[in-house]
């Protein structure tokens, strides 16, 4: 009889521990970084292609004639930044987009050089296209490395 009482007490302890852990998992263990987002990943890849193509055309199309393309790409970049900013625990990805948008950064500086020179040399256009690709790869890599939601 006493043995049975001990067993019941132990069982209650285990069940209480289990409930406590489940509670912690829901309320205490807030993720340190956002989960993977398919839309953000796809948008980053799309942006990479658009930005690389934009840089590649800088050796054949004058800046003034490319303004529509530049504006379109800039709008897409701004949208991606705002989407990243709106997600919780997503400050690192947001900072990456902020670097691309920065007036002191590579992308905006390259646009100013393009404007100043009318067109870039083919070597410059190719190197800058590669560089923007490397930068976008970092955004893509971070998004892809985030944990996937378990169903």
């Amino acid at each position: 009889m006493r043995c049975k009482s001990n067993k019941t007490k132990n069982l209650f302890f285990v069940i209480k521990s289990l409930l406590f852990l489940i509670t912690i998992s829901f309320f205490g263990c807030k993720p340190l970084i956002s989960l993977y987002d398919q839309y953000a990943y796809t948008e980053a890849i799309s942006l990479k292609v658009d930005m690389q193509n934009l840089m590649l055309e800088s050796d054949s199309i004058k800046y003034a004639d490319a303004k529509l393309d530049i504006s379109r790409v800039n709008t897409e970049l701004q949208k991606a930044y705002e989407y990243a900013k709106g997600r919780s625990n997503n400050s690192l990805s947001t900072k990456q987009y902020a670097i691309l948008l920065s007036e002191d950064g590579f992308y905006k500086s390259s646009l100013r050089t393009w404007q100043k020179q009318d067109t870039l040399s083919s070597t410059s256009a190719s190197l800058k296209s590669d560089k923007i690709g490397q930068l976008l790869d970092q955004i893509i890599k971070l998004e892809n490395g985030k944990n996937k939601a378990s169903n």
Partner: protein
Amino acid sequence: MSIDISALLSEIGNKIPALAQTSLSGYIDAATTDGQRLLATLKSDIETGTQDLIENKITKDDFSDLLLGDKDLVQMTALTEAGLALASVDAFRTAVLNLVVSSVTDFIKI
């Protein structure tokens, strides 16, 4: 039959180092490789850019832009690595929690 809580905790404790080994050491190896790759990229970029500038294939402004690109790349790589580290810690934490829950559940079944 009574439930041996200390045995349960001991079993969980024994499994955690292996869990940490698989969850976190993979990240450390990847981060080391990424760091070495970044250094190689920067070295190659500076050498190529300097040569292209000497040969007038690019202008000084272009060269300056490319150096800015390298600076941005270092910052963005650091942000990526920081994010991947956080994701690894999240995954480890989830794995530990799953281990605890499954161990406790197994004990209850006994």
